[in-house]
């Protein structure tokens, strides 16, 4: 997908005017947020578990080269193939080659954010291969040719009526007079349509929530079971994933899984947690004949050890966006690429550049709720600030804004000048704002377009304090 992050302000404006979207986003509070809070309250050791999960990832990242090699060795031993992909293009090429070698016509897909990142669907389509998303949310947005608007609930922006309309438009072989009012009816229809695709697929592509070095295993967590059908029924299973998904052991995977589901949906454990190790062995009742893992770097190894290193701990639970007031106001599409919300505001500039994604780390109130709920304790606001520093150093800060900032800073760095200037200006301003507020004020239109601006009371505190000191 071609990023439209540079148009963030316009995207946000559109989103704010989209009433159905605002209603859909309003539901997050009663769903993900409330459920996470309940799950956390039920597990006394949750905070300790967060520390443990964080430590697992920190250890892994510190020795990532070793664990990646150990992982590859295990995958190979169990009969699978690891394909290292330095860039998105490398990953696309590797997957296409596997599909073409198999003569694939239809490819089923489990949900994968890395798949979105490398835009694998478009690539397969261009080569005459039909990718079919099998996660319900992904299926819905595929019908609409839209990107996901949330990393675990890709169609969170849609409502029932929109889904019904899409199904009636797309599923033309079904009777026109069928009833599609209840969510259950919509789900049943999607299941029936997808069932045929599962059986027809030549290749199944899934993502991976975790990779386990000691066993060469990839792990997916889903709630629909679509991932299992995607990876077990076709002859070939391709895992598309990225280097930072690694953990050393099964035990470590368990630690991460315990915080992942709770942070994401408030479940103790997702409905399906599936461990895949190699292709079908002799005597196995099912499983693929071939098992491939495409491991993407795409700029991640450059983040190791740098200012954005901590971002590599992210386990893609979505808690940061669920709790973000900005995401809650505008939704995910406004962010203009694959990863929205606070985690996207940090990761997107790393992956597609700060020139394209500069707005993202700026569009935060730094309220800190994202960091407070992040199971991996990623200091998201701090890293957004680092992006702002880089932008400032690059000279990307808008000229008028920078000039105002510089003028203010110059005065603030010279206390005497500052006291003199404010001592003159503030009482003057107070006189114009005798009603206690301004309905409009030159240079403050960004504020007064929507709000009144409370006026100064009169003299500054410093003036009053000095006068008081003189009297006493």
């Amino acid at each position, binding site marked *: 997908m071609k990023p439209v992050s540079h148009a963030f*302000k316009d995207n*946000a*404006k559109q989103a*704010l005017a989209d009433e159905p979207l605002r209603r859909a986003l309003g539901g997050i*509070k009663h769903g993900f947020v409330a459920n996470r809070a309940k799950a956390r309250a039920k597990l006394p050791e949750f905070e300790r578990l967060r520390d443990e999960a964080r430590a697992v990832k920190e250890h892994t990242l510190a020795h990532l080269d070793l664990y990646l090699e150990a992982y590859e060795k295990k995958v190979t031993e169990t009969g699978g193939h690891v394909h290292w992909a330095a860039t998105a293009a490398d990953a696309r090429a590797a997957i296409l080659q596997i599909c073409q070698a198999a003569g694939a016509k239809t490819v089923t897909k489990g949900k994968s954010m890395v798949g979105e990142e490398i835009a694998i669907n478009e690539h397969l389509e261009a080569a005459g291969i039909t990718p079919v998303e099998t996660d319900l949310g992904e299926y819905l947005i595929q019908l609409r040719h839209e990107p996901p608007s949330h990393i675990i609930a890709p169609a969170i922006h849609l409502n029932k009526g929109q889904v019904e309309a899409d199904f009636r438009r797309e599923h033309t072989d079904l009777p026109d007079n069928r009833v599609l009012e209840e969510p259950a009816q919509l789900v049943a229809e999607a299941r029936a349509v997808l069932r045929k695709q599962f059986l027809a697929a030549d290749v199944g592509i899934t993502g991976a929530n975790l990779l386990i070095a000691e066993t060469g295993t990839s792990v997916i967590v889903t709630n629909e079971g679509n991932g299992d059908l995607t990876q077990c029924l076709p002859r070939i299973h391709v895992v598309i994933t990225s280097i930072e998904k690694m953990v050393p052991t099964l035990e470590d995977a368990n630690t991460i899984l315990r915080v992942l589901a709770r942070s994401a949906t408030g479940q103790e454990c997702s409905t399906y947690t599936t461990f895949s190790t190699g292709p079908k062995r002799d005597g196995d009742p099912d499983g693929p004949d071939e098992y491939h893992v495409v491991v993407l770097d795409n700029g991640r190894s450059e983040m190791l050890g740098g200012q954005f290193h901590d971002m590599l701990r992210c386990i893609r639970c979505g808690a940061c966006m669920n709790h973000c*007031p*900005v995401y*809650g*106001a*505008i939704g995910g599409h406004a962010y203009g690429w694959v990863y929205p919300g606070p985690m996207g505001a940090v990761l997107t500039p790393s992956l597609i550049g700060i020139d394209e994604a500069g707005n993202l780390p*700026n*569009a*935060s*109130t*730094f*309220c*800190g*709720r994202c960091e*407070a709920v992040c199971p991996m304790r990623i200091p998201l606001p*701090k890293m957004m*600030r680092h*992006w*702002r*520093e*880089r932008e*400032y*150093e690059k000279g990307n*800060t808008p000229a008028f*804004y920078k000039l105002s*900032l*510089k003028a203010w*800073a110059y*005065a*603030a*760095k010279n*206390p005497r000048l500052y006291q003199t200037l*404010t001592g003159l200006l503030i009482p003057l301003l107070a006189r114009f704002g*005798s*009603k*206690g*507020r301004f*309905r409009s004020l030159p240079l*403050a239109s*960004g*504020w007064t*377009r*929507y*709000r*009144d*601006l*409370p*006026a*100064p*009371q009169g003299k*500054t*505190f*410093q003036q*009053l*304090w*000095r006068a008081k000191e003189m009297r006493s």
Partner: protein
Amino acid sequence: MAGKNQAISTPTVGLFVTCLVDLIRPSVGFAAVKLLEEAGCRVEVPQSQTCCGQPAYNSGDKSDARALALNTIAAFEGFDYVVAPSGSCAGMLKHHYPELLGDDPETAERANKFAQKVYELISFLVDVREMKAVSAAFEANTTYHDSCAGLRELGIKKQPRELLASVKGLTLTEMDEAEICCGFGGTFSIKYPDISNAIVEKKTGNITASKTTCLLAGDLGCLMNMAGKLSREGKRVEVRHVAEVLAGMTDTPAIGQGDEGTQ
């Protein structure tokens, strides 16, 4: 901790007024002085203070932010404590100065030493000075907004509620989502006014739904944002800094209100 603090019977507190209180609402500064004196402190107000530097820091301008941080530290490091009537500015002094000045061992040590003395006003009164009650009276049904930096950087939640419970005539009704950002975010409110507006609209909705007549908080930036939105919406809610109420200094017009009063 308490024992150590009690060792200083009459500590000298440097009041970090904060630029917004200095310029927009000096009455909050005087309320802070009164409360600190009631808590047995001697208060001084260094004239060389200006702003904590957050606008520069959060805009990526590290060199100006550093210069302002060093200016603040120089003005205040001689006091027993540094107290600010703002969680946001206190958080900047306490948590972000050490980070901002951490590259150079010399400034790092100064910033760390300084940070240990820094407190937000209400938490200082309750946690350090062990204030349990105030002598103020204020007839109002109030609600309290937990400003983000105070809540999440400094753990301020119970302290203002504890002291408010002792104000005669005051009742406190919690609003829904009291802990969610009001959409101010400093320069955010000017850089992204549309989004900021959508967030503050939710907040004023929650304030109105609480059916209270007075909104309190501990940060003037957030208060100005919410008061400005409430008055634009024509909602009659009296908005005040919590220090004014605790100090019994509520005869000044509320935030965003003129001499005609709040009604």
